[in-house]
């Protein structure tokens, strides 16, 4: 049974340039409970946890930790401080040192003595393994362990440091269902032993299965904290998404034309060898149609796009554009066939920050005759002209096309990227999270542009984590779950409800069969 409060975060505020990542957040944790922290990407969960772990320093606010039965304010200068106060973190991206053995990874930074007595350490770890049920081979390079085993090492690291408070940052994102089951068993066991766990996730069924209390974050704020008894998936989903200003962008009425993109039985391997991120997926998009891909992040959407866009060779299946096979073709060929792409992470994939807007305006098409004589000598006036048109047409706020991209605000950068991709001649537009991290104004603008695309009889593949966006824009919605499109919904007259999509996003029927022992107790709509 959960006991006293052992951790309290009060009025935590953290600003990054241009972003309020954490806005006066109050959060607490009781002894022996699992407190789930949910929210979309960028809601501020990770920032909050990094503050708790001493990696970031809050601009405002105080952290209290129970020391000798009393809550005391603490200041963490670095993770070492946090560790000393019994806080341990299992990062989403494992913080394991490849090239070191399991045991070395576990004791790293918390070695028993200057000269390491491996035998004693091993005995101690063995004891922890027996108590917690986390068994891993100790004398091998962690690199060779499976993902699930690596996560166990991460948890062992935390336990070895005698942490009472465990932060698990999206621990299931990389796990198979079986591994997830085992993880939950372990979490329950740890709970019984008196550990408190902060469980970060956006997989609602998992949260419902494991958490005692649930806090929901949205846009840097902690909007609500509730015990599990008061929570339903729907309620959480609603809190997560919030009620954005309803954007009333009229959807143009377009009769779909010929099939532009056709994907047949596509199978794509993930970064982990042998695991299929995209599993036998088939769909098509016609001219003048927006096809939305819904799904909790990490269910294969990214890999699907990469395969279509030629960045990841498919394992099987076929992709055609207007009947022409482009499977496994390189990106520049695919772009030439008329594919534009608004990437999900613009800083990483969409722009060159130090380059001027002009240079950023022609990426991937820089060899075209309009921009380069013989495909080699760059025509600067044409490029500038082109950039100015994008700037003008897409209302990008900038003094000129000669400033570096890095000087623009996020919204304007995104508008520029969207404008660029739309401006290129294309048949298919792949838009991945086209409004991520932009303000409402820019969002509406981008929606209008996508509809304009539709009017121009383009085929649009829209991938988004934002349900409202999907429902507003898409004619048809394919819901991806664990690499498969488990359901395709017709939304031509906006008849699909968020509830419906949400149901399939969480696995729908599939989940009930596969994960019956976890999610079995709960009834979905």
């Amino acid at each position, binding site marked *: 049974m959960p006991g006293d409060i052992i951790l309290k975060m009060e009025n935590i505020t953290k600003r990054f340039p241009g972003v309020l990542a954490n806005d006066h957040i109050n959060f607490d944790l009781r002894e022996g409970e699992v407190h789930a922290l949910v929210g979309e990407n960028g809601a501020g969960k990770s920032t909050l946890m990094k503050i708790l772990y001493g990696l970031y320093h809050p601009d405002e606010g105080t952290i209290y930790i129970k020391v000798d039965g009393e809550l005391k304010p603490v200041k963490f200068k670095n993770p070492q401080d946090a560790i000393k106060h019994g806080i341990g973190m299992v990062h989403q991206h494992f913080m394991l040192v490849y090239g070191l053995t399991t045991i070395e990874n576990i004791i790293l930074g918390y070695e028993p003595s200057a000269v390491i007595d491996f035998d004693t350490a091993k005995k101690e770890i063995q004891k922890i393994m027996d108590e917690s049920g986390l068994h891993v081979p100790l004398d091998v390079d962690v690199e060779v362990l499976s993902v699930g085993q690596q996560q166990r090492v991460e948890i062992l690291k935390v336990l070895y440091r005698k942490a009472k408070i465990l932060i698990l940052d999206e621990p299931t994102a990389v796990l198979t269902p079986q591994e997830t089951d085992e993880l939950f068993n372990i979490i329950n066991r740890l709970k019984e032993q008196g550990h408190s766990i902060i469980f970060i996730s956006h997989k609602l069924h998992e949260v419902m299965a494991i958490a005692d209390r649930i806090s929901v974050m949205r846009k840097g704020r902690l909007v609500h904290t509730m015990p599990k008894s008061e929570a339903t998936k729907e309620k959480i989903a609603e809190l997560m998404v919030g009620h954005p200003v309803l954007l009333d962008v009229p959807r143009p009425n377009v009769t779909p034309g010929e099939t532009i993109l056709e994907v047949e039985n596509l199978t794509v391997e993930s970064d982990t060898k042998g695991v299929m991120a995209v599993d036998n997926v088939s769909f098509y998009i016609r001219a003048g149609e927006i096809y939305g891909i819904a799904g909790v992040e990490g269910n294969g959407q990214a890999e699907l796009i990469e395969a279509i866009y030629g960045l990841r060779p498919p394992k099987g299946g076929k992709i055609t554009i207007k009947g022409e096979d482009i499977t496994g073709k390189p990106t520049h060929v695919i772009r030439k066939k008329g594919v534009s792409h608004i990437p999900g992470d613009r800083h990483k994939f969409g722009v060159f920050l130090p380059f001027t807007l002009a240079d950023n305006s022609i990426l991937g098409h820089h060899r075209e005759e309009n921009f380069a004589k013989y495909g080699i000598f760059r025509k600067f006036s044409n490029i500038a002209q082109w950039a100015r048109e994008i700037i003008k047409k897409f209302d990008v706020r900038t003094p000129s096309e000669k400033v*570096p991209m890095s*000087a623009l605000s996020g919204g304007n950068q995104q508008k520029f990227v969207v404008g660029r991709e739309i401006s290129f001649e294309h048949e298919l537009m792949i838009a991945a999270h086209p409004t991520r991290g932009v303000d409402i104004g820019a969002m509406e603008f981008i929606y209008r542009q996508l509809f304009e695309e539709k009017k121009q009889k383009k085929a649009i593949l829209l991938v988004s984590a934002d349900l409202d966006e999907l429902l507003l824009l898409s004619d048809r919605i394919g819901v991806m779950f664990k690499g498969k499109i488990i359901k395709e919904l017709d939304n031509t007259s906006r008849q699909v409800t968020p509830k419906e999509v949400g149901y399939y996003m969480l696995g729908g029927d599939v989940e009930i069969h596969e994960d019956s022992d976890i999610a079995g107790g709960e009834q979905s709509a």
Partner: protein
Amino acid sequence: MPKKKTNNIKYFLLSLVAPVVGILISAILLFFLILLIRKGSISDTIHAFYIMGQTLTSTQDLGYIIARAEPLVISGIAAAIAFRAGVFNIGTEGQYYIGGLVASIYAIYFSFKSPSLHWLNVIFVVIFAMLGGALWALIPAILKVKKGVHEVITTIMMNQIAYTTAKYFVNGPLSGVKGGESLEPKTMNFPAAVDFHRLYDIFHGHFPFPKYIPLYESLFIAAIIVFVAYIIIFYTNWGFEIEMLGTNPNATKYSGVPPKVVVFNAMLWSGAIAGLINIQEIFGIKGYYTHHMTSGLGFDGIAVALIGYNNPIGVVLAAFLFGFLRTAGYNLQFELGIPNSTMDLITGFIIIVMVIASVAMNRYISKLRRKEVLSEAGDR
């Protein structure tokens, strides 16, 4: 509009801060070093700086500065091309040994013997030197693209092998050391139709520098390289794609530019140009090849490229700085007996200080710039 212009001037001036700071700090160090060498004589030390100043005003010394800057310009450009693509080719050192060697083999065995075909020989020397350099860059390029082996390690190894290879050819098949004469190892002399002409002779005396200044036709080659590199880097898509890769490999991939191809090309072109680094000495000054020629030009070029912000114009300026330091170094050695090694010390020091300063300044400039654009655009 006028405001923007002043801004550009401001940024340009800011980008000069690092070199100026580097030179100033190094000058202070030099002051103390000379003081140490001249056993505390301040007047000697001041005289030393006066001598350095004179270096810039004497025609003869200017000629030397140009001559000494020339190989560094080529070396700097070779390095810069790779660096712009994010490839750290520190194998230019070995590449010019092999470039020179291959061109020498051409000169000795295959060149035109008729003096009227001299210009053809020059062209072929350039081509073969570039081929040789590219050949030596090929192995690191392949290892990087195919096996992901970091180019720094492989090029260091290739440098050592290059020296040995050159030595083998000089002592073995190409040896020009005649029995009875005690000479340092070298190849046979090149036919007269290959030897680069002096600029002084070409201009029939309409030449500002004395005849003996070692300025040869290769200066044109260096000038052409600067010009072509400038065009390629700033006016062509090759340069653009190299820059893309060096800036953001992920976005490059997303733009449909295959990174491996760009890496491969950048490495090969860098090597090809590196093959030309020392043709001045081999085909101009010496007229034969030896592995015992001026070494370290490749490493100097790396510094030149970095100090010159990988920009051909910057490379030229940095090369002139080095040329100046060297020439001034000889003057100091000659006039005051201050050993040339002092200048080595200062050169190394300048490199470290300037690079540190430029890293810091770049960070500051981009911050400043962002702030300004945001306020100007009225955005946030």
